[in-house]
């Protein structure tokens, strides 16, 4: 969709995180990770997320601090939903605000990339044939310390 309008544009960040309203920030980058209806060839019915909550909170705060140190951004917010999530709904929401766009894009990418590698959250896919599988990412190294 492409639209050119004279009406006010309301950003979706306003629904999740109204504190992004900061007149010194010219850029807000948001990322929504949504539940997809397929993985490779398999048709996915729904997802279930398990989470080690106190550690997930702690690791997310560490990653957020790292991003603040690496990039000149004003605010970083992360919301991760756990439990059962239907197709099409949001599993993870990330928002980053900054004075200029480059830093916000980079910090948002850093947040989701590190989240996927380090935060103790696990997804189980239920397929339309009734089978369930815990997804294990294969694209990252084992971590110790």
């Amino acid at each position, binding site marked *: 969709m492409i639209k050119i309008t004279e009406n006010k544009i309301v950003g979706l960040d306003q629904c999740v995180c109204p504190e992004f309203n900061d007149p010194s920030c010219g850029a807000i980058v948001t990322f929504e*990770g949504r539940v997809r209806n397929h993985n490779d060839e398999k048709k996915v019915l729904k997802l279930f*997320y*398990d*989470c*080690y909550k*106190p*550690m*997930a909170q*702690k690791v997310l705060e560490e990653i957020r601090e790292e991003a603040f140190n690496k990039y000149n951004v004003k605010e970083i917010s992360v919301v*991760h939903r756990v439990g059962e999530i239907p197709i099409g709904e949001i*599993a*993870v929401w990330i928002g980053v605000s900054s004075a200029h766009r480059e830093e916000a894009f980079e910090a948002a990418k850093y947040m*989701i990339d590190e*989240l*996927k*590698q*380090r*935060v*103790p*959250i*696990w*997804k*189980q896919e239920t397929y339309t044939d009734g089978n369930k599988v*815990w*997804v*294990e*990412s*294969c694209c*990252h190294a*084992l*971590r*110790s*310390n």
Partner: protein
Amino acid sequence: MNVRVLLFAGLRDLFKQGELNLSLPEGSTIKELKEELFLRFEKGSEKLKTTQFAVNQTYADLKTKLRDGDEVAFLPMVSGG
């Protein structure tokens, strides 16, 4: 000494519980705790190979020495997001 063991995702299903308390000799490491779990449940060896560990909510390796009252989590490869 006693430690609290937490299991998540596929490991929780495999062991049919998410939490258990184990008594170990003083100074035991995560490696020794893992071996104790193998002995006790006689399963999970394949699954536990690619597992990561955390002690009191911080990533730790097999050589980490445990203390009485520690919370030790066995974490399958993560897949959040």
